[in-house]
């Protein structure tokens, strides 16, 4: 198991290094000029050149990369070019917001989608199955901004049940915060339910058709026991992988939902950083989302190996 873990950690480190290079190169390939962005379209070229020099953005790309990466290794995420603030000061609150929304959405969608997928599989080709699979997929293909706007109109403006913005006022208690987060989280539930439940359904059907399930049934075990002990344990493997891969999206990819609900999360932060060519903020934000994604997939791998001894033993060999 330790070797398995070390292998995964090593791969994660390599991935992070490659990600840092990609982020750096990508950010530098963005059109525009850092100082021009900051000073405006009509600023004097001499002033633009001077600011680029002051910020170090006129140095060779390798020098800039080295300065950035060594800063990172010393825990210095740099200073935002747009806001003249430490990147930590901007990422901290945004990350907290994103984690809150992602956690709330996960808490709602994961159990719901697993139950939905299992119920659909147990009722394969029946009406219940059709409703869950077709309904879930239909909702999933609707763009998230459409879903979000519909929810805002219905629950925010017409029924006046929930706030139309997601950011609760300062000092709000946990219940008030959940109330503010409900509509964006529900949007995510609608987006993700069809996908996760379909994967769960497929895994469950595969497990139901497996020899070990048939053996368990022939042994005379009650159906509920068969499902709990033999089917679910195996059917959840692909579901875990899918849920883990959604982490990056939920933490750093919710630009549309965060904008729609005026929620100051990582998605908006990354988007505005890219738009403003705020390189230190952009690179550090993407890297942090990358780290979270890698941690999530690592945890998924561990859960996978725990549930499926074949993987664990294969890795140990």
């Amino acid at each position, binding site marked *: 198991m330790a070797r398995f873990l070390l292998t995964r950690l090593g791969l994660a480190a390599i991935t992070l290094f490659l990600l840092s290079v990609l982020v750096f190169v990508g950010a530098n390939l963005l059109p525009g000029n850092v100082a021009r962005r900051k000073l405006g379209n009509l600023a*004097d070229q001499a*002033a633009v050149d001077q600011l680029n020099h002051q910020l170090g953005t006129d140095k060779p790309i390798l020098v800039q990369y080295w300065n950035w990466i060594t800063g990172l290794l010393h825990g210095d995420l740099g200073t935002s070019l747009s806001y003249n603030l430490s990147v930590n000061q901007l990422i901290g609150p945004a990350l907290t917001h994103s984690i809150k929304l992602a956690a709330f959405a996960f808490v709602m969608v994961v159990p719901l989608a697993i139950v939905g997928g299992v119920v659909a599989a147990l009722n394969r080709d029946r009406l219940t199955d059709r409703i869950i699979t077709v309904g879930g997929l239909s909702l999933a293909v609707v763009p998230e901004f459409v879903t979000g706007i519909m929810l*805002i109109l219905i629950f925010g403006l017409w029924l006046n049940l929930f706030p139309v913005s997601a950011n609760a006022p300062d000092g709000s208690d946990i219940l008030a915060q959940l109330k503010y987060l409900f509509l964006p989280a529900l949007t995510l539930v609608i987006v993700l339910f069809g996908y996760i439940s379909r994967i769960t359904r497929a895994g469950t059907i595969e497990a139901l058709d497996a020899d070990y399930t048939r053996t368990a049934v022939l042994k005379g075990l009650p159906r509920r026991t068969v499902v709990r002990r033999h089917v679910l344990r195996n059917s959840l493997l692909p579901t875990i992988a899918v849920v883990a891969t959604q982490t990056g999206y939920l933490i750093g990819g919710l630009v549309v939902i965060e904008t729609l609900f005026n929620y100051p999360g990582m998605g908006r932060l990354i988007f505005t950083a890219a738009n403003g060519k705020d390189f230190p903020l952009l690179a550090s934000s993407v890297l942090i989302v990358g780290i979270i994604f890698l941690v999530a997939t690592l945890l998924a791998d561990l859960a996978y190996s725990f549930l499926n001894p074949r993987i664990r033993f294969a890795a140990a060999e």
Partner: protein
Amino acid sequence: MDDTQRRVDAIRTERSELENHIIDEYAAGKITRREFVRRGTVVGMSIPLVSFLAAACGGGGESGTEATSGGTATGAAQPGGNIRVALIQPSTEPNPLIVKDEGGAGLLGSTGEFLSFSNAKLELEPRIAESWEPNEDGTEWTFKIRQGVTFHSGATLTANDVKTTFESLVDPKNASNALSALGGVLSPGNTEAPDDATVVFHLDAPNGNFPTLVSSANYNAIIIPADLDPADWGKTFDGTGPFKLESFTPKVGAKFVRYDSYWGEKANPDGFELKFYDEEGPMIVAFQGDEVDFVEHFSVSGGQALLSDPNVQVIAVGASTHRQLHMRTDKDPFTDKRVRQAIALSLDRNAMVDGLWDGKADLGNDSPFAPAYPSTDTSVPQREQNIDQAKQLLSDAGMADGFTVELQTWNGFEIPDLAQLVKQYASEIGVTVNVKIVGDDTAYYGDAVFGKSIWLDSVMGITDYGHRPVPNVFLSSVYTSKGTWNAAHFKNSQADDLIAQYIAALDLDSQRAAAKQIQELLLDETPVVIPYFYNFLSAAKPNLQGAVSAATGQFDLSKAGYTS
């Protein structure tokens, strides 16, 4: 001689030649009461004084109708309360030197104060400056600085703070955004503070509109303490306004509370809260969902829900915000002015105003003289769509079969729609316009210098221009031979002379005389088409009173309050 006349005479003996000239113009009926108030305040007369003279001297009546009062209804506002304001996300740190957008302007003006406030009628209301006056030829302006004004940090404001603020704004090393208005007008080292209550500006050339250039219309020009680095201003928001900072969270919003040591009338509300929005849509929804009470700015296309709601107070401020369709006068096919005129004549401006702006815009007449400017000469005929004349002009220019040209612009606001309309109208006279949207504004503006900018190098392009309370910057930067924003590459010595005359003119008569000639010249030469000037729109809840909006993105909530 009655008492009133005696008082008027007494006042006039103390006023400058220029101020007396304006009073004469008004008494003779040459300018309206509104113009008298505006011009009077620009040259340094206080509003009470101007109001007294307006009543005492009779003079011209009102011409036309007020586009707006620039604010919500006034009256029975309750004291106290906390007003929630939706503001577009500032794109930079709150540094007075580099703020360059409405969101940032709103932040600066929340605690900062200017020498004067340019209101929706383009009148100057004295703030940190009590009064101001020019020398004889307008090359020197002297401002009397209000005494007893304190910064929120506790320090007393003096003329040295004003001097240091402006020296910092005009220093080329700082690349201040304020240079777009003050560049070529006020040079470094030319601002002096002979005593604690006086600031004298020595200008590069005569300028009759200088007080406007150092007012809130130049939103970077908030007065900050002399010993405060502008880059650090965002840590404290130290200003002298009626509200002071309570908290600021970048990318989220800011809270302000009443400043009890304010030199003037204390703010009516307890405070206000700014909420930042990246997009207009969520801002409108937040307003409809009762999460904000005041939307600082919205567009016609994005704010239909507000415009059609009778329970929303819409504030429409006449402004000079516009789009310019430039045609390179030094490159084919636009070297012949008849071709440029033909393009201008092909456009149906009324349809554009209705279709793109729901009527919330004024017709443009291919010069930067917006109807909102008092100096605009309204006797110059409005250019209308005339397809036959346009075809004839093309034929006379040897282009009866039309031509093909590329129109470049960027993807923002209604600009892509405008580009498509130009294409459609041009096709009616046989001209094929290939629209090329180059991406965002960065791609279009490039390095903003000739040779490195699609904006300045394209044969035909559409450029967005923000509101300016006086047309000086438009004129000197876009239409002079050496203009740094002269995308049409228009070089005309007559235009150069007339623009210099306009900028130097100290009284409205002289300004309007020069304006008429400039308007006629530009209409004839047509280096640029300006199809419309659109209104600046704000929205307020029906129970919010006394909120004031100005087209520069400034707002004043010091007298605002709720009726219930």
